């Protein structure tokens, strides 16, 4: 029970912050990071939609294997993968477990397996692509796909402001700690600590909102001065900004290989389908 107390006093915000920073600003040097972001997004969309169209387990297994290979090549952080697996397994686990109460049998598990496979393929596709993509390039690719300028700006602005905002919140939160008082009793399940922590976390947003409002005003004024709103209505500026996005041989090759792999998988799948046997009730 002392754990929460320990956690609260031991929580080293600096360490968490650096972890966050590493994820956000670490180097992105894998194969996927070098693709034209537009190609990467198209590739992703392909794998986000296709799994929904197949119920043939062979095809899904094929796609899954392909994804796993790419994931291995992309050097994804084990933590992220662990979280993904954990999430998928527990989710399916709950459903199967609950299904047993309603007279379910192993068919439920089999059905769920197909479903979970679909979700895994899609999740891996997004992890492979997006954990390796520079947010700047991502936002430019979106801009190319006619996503409104403000949204694309938002991505790179968030990328810029994240550390500042974290610092600010941390400072305000510490202000509360340095002037507040920690509950003396912990209560059942340490609820007093949890309550204290939650209330502080929420209250800290009051100054945070006001301070951020002040900062935002300067930012938007500066944007005005830097011709941002002017550029928004200027197609030439957009063209110029995006002119660096070029598809290279590498991209074509990548899409080509993906195409071949997909055709092979689907062909094999239709020849040797693994179907779920459906029990008629």
């Amino acid at each position, binding site marked *: 029970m002392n754990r929460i107390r320990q956690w609260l*006093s031991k929580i080293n915000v600096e360490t968490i912050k650096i972890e966050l920073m590493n994820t956000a*600003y670490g180097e992105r040097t894998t194969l996927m990071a070098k693709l034209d972001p537009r190609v990467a997004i198209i590739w992703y969309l392909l794998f986000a939609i296709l799994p929904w169209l197949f119920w043939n387990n062979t095809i899904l297994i094929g796609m899954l294997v392909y994804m796993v290979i790419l994931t291995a090549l992309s050097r994804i952080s084990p933590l992220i993968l662990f979280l993904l697996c954990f999430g998928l397994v527990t989710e399916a686990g709950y459903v199967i477990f609950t299904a047993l109460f309603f007279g379910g049998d192993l068919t439920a598990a089999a059905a769920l397996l197909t479903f979970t496979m679909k979700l895994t393929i899609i999740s891996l596709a997004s992890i492979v692509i997006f954990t390796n993509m520079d947010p700047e390039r991502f936002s430019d690719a979106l801009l190319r796909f006619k996503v409104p300028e403000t949204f694309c700006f938002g991505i790179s*602005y968030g990328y*810029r402001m994240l550390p500042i905002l974290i610092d600010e919140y941390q400072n305000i939160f510490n202000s509360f700690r340095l002037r507040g*008082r920690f509950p003396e009793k912990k209560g059942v399940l340490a609820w007093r600590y949890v309550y204290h922590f939650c209330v502080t976390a929420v209250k800290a947003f009051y100054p945070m909102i006001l301070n951020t409002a002040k900062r935002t005003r*300067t930012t938007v*004024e*500066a944007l005005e*001065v830097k011709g*941002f709103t002017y550029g928004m209505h200027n197609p030439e500026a957009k063209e110029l900004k995006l002119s660096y996005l070029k598809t290279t041989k590498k991209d074509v090759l990548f899409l080509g290989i993906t195409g071949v792999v997909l055709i092979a998988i689907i062909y094999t799948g239709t020849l040797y389908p693994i179907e779920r046997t459906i029990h008629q009730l």
Partner: protein
Amino acid sequence: MIMTPPIIELKQVSFSYPSSGESVLHDVSLSVERGDFLAVIGGNGSGKTTLCKTFNGLIPHYYNGELAGVIRINGEAAQDTNTALLSKTVGYVYQDFESQLVRPRVLDEVRFAPLNYGWQDYKERGDEALDMLGLNDIKDEFIWQLSGGQKHLTALASVLSLQPDVIIVDEPVAQLDPVHAREIYYTLQYLNREHGITIIVIEHHTEFIAEFAQSVLLMDAGTVKWKKPTSEAMRCTTELQDHNILPPPVTRLAEAVDAEASRAPITLEEGTDWFRPWVPATSPRHIRPVPPAASKRAEIASFDGVTQGYKTVEKSFKWIFEDLSLSFYEGERIALVGGNGAGKSSLLKMLTGILRPRKGHITAAGQALHGTSPEKIAELVTYIYQNPEEMFIEDNIRADIEYFLKARKSPETSTYADELCRLFSLEDLQHKDGRLLSGGQQRRASLAIGLGTQPSLLLLDEPTSSLDINSREEVARLLHELKEHVKTVVTATHDMDLVAEWASRVIVLNEGTVEYDGGPRGLFSSHELMRRCSLYPPQIVRLSEKLGIQPSALDIHEFLPFVKGGGPCYESYPSVAFENQR
């Protein structure tokens, strides 16, 4: 020579913001010549910033208020164009320059503006701006990783990328340490001289104005008082002081020496020449050092073998301190100085328990901090943030002051808060939100909030940064008065004037080690040490150095005896040892 039209011309301009309705600018007429280096001065709320916002079209195009009169920028009427177009002529660097930087990396930032205008050569323009300011080394860095000085230069570069005719810089010194502030001014001077860019600065520090500006515009209550060449403006000492502006130290010194002086010096160079005949060219004088007293000092805080560091984004480990040992004693007024990144804030934060050392022990008021929660430590130690806004957690000052005692259900909450409000002259402000106050008021409020925890040890982070002279003096005065409320005060600061006039002990940190620990005079007499630790001594100290006065006089009052022919009488600044004996 052909008469070129002024780059900025205002005729009978009045303006009021929609929310208040009060007129902020009132019947302002002025012209700024091409190639000028203009300093806009005036007390808080005199309309300096509002005035400058009319130059780049933010007024009237962005701020919808009532505007009357004619504004001509580069010959064109500002009302007929828009902010985006005017910004190409007039660039603006904000006081809060951090919020002005909107892109993740330096290179993106400097290319952002030309890109928005759709200029084909946006890359070249950005690169050129980086070249001009010598920022090529940091062009791939993330903005958030830069130091304050580098950020300011980046903000300036991003403005430069539009190749404007005019650059306005709002209080460049406010957020920077003196060494970086000088760098910025040298850069502005270079842009002005070599590239013919008209520079307009909003500034309180007359030392910089005297050295760099060509002309000075004095604002008062929304009107222009006068615009004069710098040398003339700086000598209007009484008038400047009436408007809360402190003339350069050498000028004040010269006036103190000779009130009738017709051509009082305004810069250090002029001062050196001016004072040389007054100060007898004797060999360096040495004052009698006060012998260190046998100490019976009570220790209030100590660091023992403290090691601290953090992992960087590049996955390497950066040490801030390695095996640091240090003690603070009761009754001391300690100034913690050193360049950016020297570890000043980390040291203070370790004393609050917010930052835990990786190795070593820290005690405060006889209690080991290890295993004590920050909430508990806060009863002994108070930390006052550099940015007061981060301390305003309630919706009015009074509630903020009472927060700590209320949380502890202290019966004297109300009376003690009353006392603090009186001490810091916050009676009329106590029911306002801290964020709506002026810089000086915010600072006072933050001191009161800090004392609201009734600490023994008070830690201040840059208490005088971004304050105008008047508020700065006030804070300095209050720091002296704190003695009655707390046992020891530790101040991390870049403000060497504050060190000179307030501290009883100075600790110089450089790359995590203590380079100097002793009285301020000793520090200011070690010129080499100061340079190494990127510290910049006050003007009077530099004047003493130039004139061969050793040890240096720390302020005008100490300097006067030299000129008046008497010997040095430095006793008014007791050394650490002396102070501890009491």
